[in-house]
């Protein structure tokens, strides 16, 4: 019966819970997807470099886990507020605290199990649907990719059950330590509008000061090292809170005294905001931090992807070195869209590699140079090459046994023939684009590895940009993928917090809008007021979130050079999604509170 009571409670509030469920389901689904990819045996076997990506995906899971814990605790406190009256009634009817505790525990766990279960199912679908995209992203080809993964299922369910256990303990503690009367009548109390005191101004200054320290810490990550992250975390979280608690209230207070407040429903809207902001301070802070994390994850993820070609091409001008001119290799090379192809004869004796001068005079060697994140290629004459340490280094590095070689000698054809060693040909190819040619290059590389017949030689030890591109692609492509989905998960959670908070206040607001209606306010004006009010509640944390990201990107300067290029794409995507959430909230809210012209008494 107790279980039935818990079940009925959840079922009955299904619609209220839905917004929150959505956040939980998305979080569980993405968690599952990360785990399913990170623990996929087929992927790990298919590609050695994938081991690096595993770390990226596990890191993503951990980060998602931490944020989900915060979200669950927060979301649960909402749910508990809705249930307070019922629990108060149970206590009044003589329910023992231990039994009530069990009831809260069962309810919380039930929500957890349902959302995790649905989340895992969605996650399996998501993984299956996105596997092709991911494979392309990572440049990995495997035939059998199974989205259903027992390890991932188990770890997702285990992790979320633990999260909900923690949440249910917190819930129990909160409810059972409150007097019955407060529980029974808690919701009928009205919030008091905020008064402007000197302390508000001080709080505002402290908030800005804390944010400045946080931003400074992120910019100085090279000096502060790992300490920068905890410093920034604490100061930014507190700073955001103080800022919302003080500055925006002052702003509204200031606006109220201007003429603007007397136009149309502006005064009413400002009053509503003034009323709400205190109650919303915590939530707005959480939202703006989540906003920053989400947008930051997407921006950084995309940023990493952008630097892959730069990384790959910074040490060599060529895409791949071909050592064994098998018919298959030759045929594959023909299929490529070639920009450059050089063939050099070579002999290796001890630690010295011999080349023929003629070859280099006819086909000059190209060297890669990096200047301010831009890669450029330079043709070197034989003479230049002889005097360029960097050029010779790049030529040497194209060999599979690069580390055993010490020097290069350029000799005439006659001398070359007298050297007692096996002659071979080094074919260097440069295509019109790495990403475009990646598939064929991969086949050539595989062919070479199998022809060389040396167990120590893998694709990674082949010369050229492609092997580096391939492993960088797996790591950074993984990062982009993780970044994008982390961003999505954070966005869903923040939107769900915001939507839920606004919508749960709708019942109380309904009265005020009905009053406006009775006073003869036009619906158009009421709708405008609603759009503005919710707009401000979305806009403020959004703006602060963007500022956080802009300063936060400073942390990635040592890793990415200039993380500020190409901000437009991630920002546009993100802001569009955020706008959609705004519009949905407005729509639902209007449906709930805007009275029809026909009055009901």
């Amino acid at each position, binding site marked *: *019966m*107790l279980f039935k*009571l818990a079940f*009925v*409670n959840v*079922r*009955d509030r299904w619609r209220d819970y839905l917004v929150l469920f959505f956040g939980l389901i998305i979080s569980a689904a993405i968690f599952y997807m990360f785990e399913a990819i990170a623990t996929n045996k087929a992927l790990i076997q298919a590609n050695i470099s994938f081991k690096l990506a595993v770390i990226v995906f596990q890191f993503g899971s951990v980060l998602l886990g931490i944020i989900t814990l915060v979200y669950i605790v927060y979301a649960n406190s909402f749910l508990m507020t809705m249930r307070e009256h*019922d629990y108060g*009634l*149970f*206590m*009044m*009817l*003589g*329910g*023992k*605290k*231990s*039994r*009530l505790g069990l009831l809260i525990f069962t309810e919380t766990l039930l929500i957890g199990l349902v959302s995790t279960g649905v989340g895992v199912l969605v996650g399996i679908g998501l993984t299956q649907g996105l596997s092709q995209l991911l494979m392309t992203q990572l440049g990995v080809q495997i035939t059998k990719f199974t989205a259903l993964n027992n390890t991932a299922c188990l770890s997702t369910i285990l992790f979320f059950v633990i999260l909900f256990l923690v949440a249910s303990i917190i819930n129990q503690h909160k409810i059972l330590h409150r*007097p*019955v*009367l407060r529980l*029974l009548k808690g919701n009928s109390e009205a919030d008091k509008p905020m008064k402007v005191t000197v302390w508000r101004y001080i709080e505002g200054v402290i908030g800005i000061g804390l944010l400045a320290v946080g931003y400074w810490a992120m910019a100085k990550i090279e000096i502060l090292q790992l300490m920068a992250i905890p410093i920034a975390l604490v100061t930014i979280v507190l700073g955001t809170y103080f800022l919302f608690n003080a500055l925006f209230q002052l702003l509204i207070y200031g606006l109220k005294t201007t003429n603007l407040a007397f136009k149309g429903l502006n005064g009413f809207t400002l009053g509503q905001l003034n009323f709400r902001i205190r109650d919303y301070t915590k939530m707005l802070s959480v939202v703006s931090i989540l906003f920053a994390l989400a947008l930051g994850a997407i921006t950084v993820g995309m940023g990493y992807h952008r630097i892959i070609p730069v990384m790959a091409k910074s040490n060599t001008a060529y895409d791949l070195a071909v050592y064994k001119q098998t018919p298959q290799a030759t045929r594959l090379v023909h299929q490529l869209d070639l920009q450059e192809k050089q063939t050099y004869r070579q002999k290796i004796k001890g630690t010295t590699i011999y080349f023929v001068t003629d070859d280099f005079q006819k086909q000059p060697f190209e060297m890669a140079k990096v200047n301010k994140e831009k890669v450029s290629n330079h043709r070197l004459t034989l003479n230049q090459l002889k005097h360029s340490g960097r050029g010779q280094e790049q030529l040497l590095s194209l060999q599979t046994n690069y580390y055993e070689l010490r020097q290069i000698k350029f000799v005439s054809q006659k001398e070359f023939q007298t050297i007692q060693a096996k002659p071979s040909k080094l074919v260097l190819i440069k295509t019109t684009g790495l990403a475009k040619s990646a598939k064929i290059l991969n086949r050539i590389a595989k062919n070479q590895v199998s022809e060389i017949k040396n167990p120590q030689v893998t694709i990674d030890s082949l010369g050229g940009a492609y092997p580096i591109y391939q492993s960088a692609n797996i790591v950074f492509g993984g990062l982009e993928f993780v970044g994008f989905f982390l961003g999505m998960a954070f966005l869903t959670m923040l939107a769900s917090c915001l939507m839920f908070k606004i919508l749960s206040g709708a019942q109380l607001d309904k009265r005020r809008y009905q009053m406006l209606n009775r006073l003869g306010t036009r619906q158009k004006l009421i709708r405008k007021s609603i759009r503005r009010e919710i707009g401000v509640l979305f806009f403020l944390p959004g703006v602060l979130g963007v500022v956080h990201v802009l300063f936060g990107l400073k942390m990635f300067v040592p890793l990415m050079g200039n993380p500020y290029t190409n901000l437009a794409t991630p920002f546009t995507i993100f802001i569009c999604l955020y706008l959609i959430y705004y519009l949905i909230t407005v729509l639902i809210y209007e449906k709930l509170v805007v009275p029809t012209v026909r009055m009901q008494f």
Partner: protein
Amino acid sequence: MNQNTVIDVQHVTKVYGKKTEKQYTALKDVNFKVRQGEFVGIMGASGSGKTTLLNILATMDKPTEGRVLVGNQDITKLDGNQVSDFRAKQIGFIFQDFNLLESLTNAENIGLPLTLQGAKKRKTNELVHQVAGQLGINQLLDKYPVEISGGQKQRVAAARGLISRPQILFADEPTGALDSRNARELLETLKQVNDEEQVSVLMVTHDPFSASYCERILFIKDGKIGEQLEAGDQKRSEFYQTILNKLGTFNDQGEDVDVI
């Protein structure tokens, strides 16, 4: 303590607000007794302290000073599971706004106090049917609260309050949300249960008609119990008139005070 006394309120004072803040005294040295099987009304204007008093008697609130004896127990000193057991076994409660759970059937609502105590399903069912029969609501048991009228809801709530055969039934404005016909029916029912089961009923109301069903009425004003009215041998309609007259004098006094 007299064998017949079920509630003994001794020097109960309730002060709201911390010592450093502005304090508000809701109850000042309240003393009274309720006999077993007595139907007592508490009347007073809003803000007079009648709800505070009821909350203290029902262990929802604790007095700042004084004690309340029910049986031989000081209920202001109960803690944890003792409070739960007291609420579950010794008292029943009827609220103005019913406080039924919309998601449960009426039968489940009535049985809720037993369920929360962990009683067996069969036993609960048996008792639900018994009390429902007594209140004449058997035909409502399988319906949900949304499917029945306000008067019926309050009967279901009364059944819930009575299911554990309490010594005392507290009713906080039980007719406040009902029309006159339903109110009359509910009061008749309460009176009947009061007579048959010897349950003491303590009802807070500001409605003279409801109050006329009581045997004794305590008038509470500014946190103090002022006068009492006993029905004695009067018929209900006569007692009703007595109450109206009494209330009339209160209003006169009030106006006099205001004028001065």
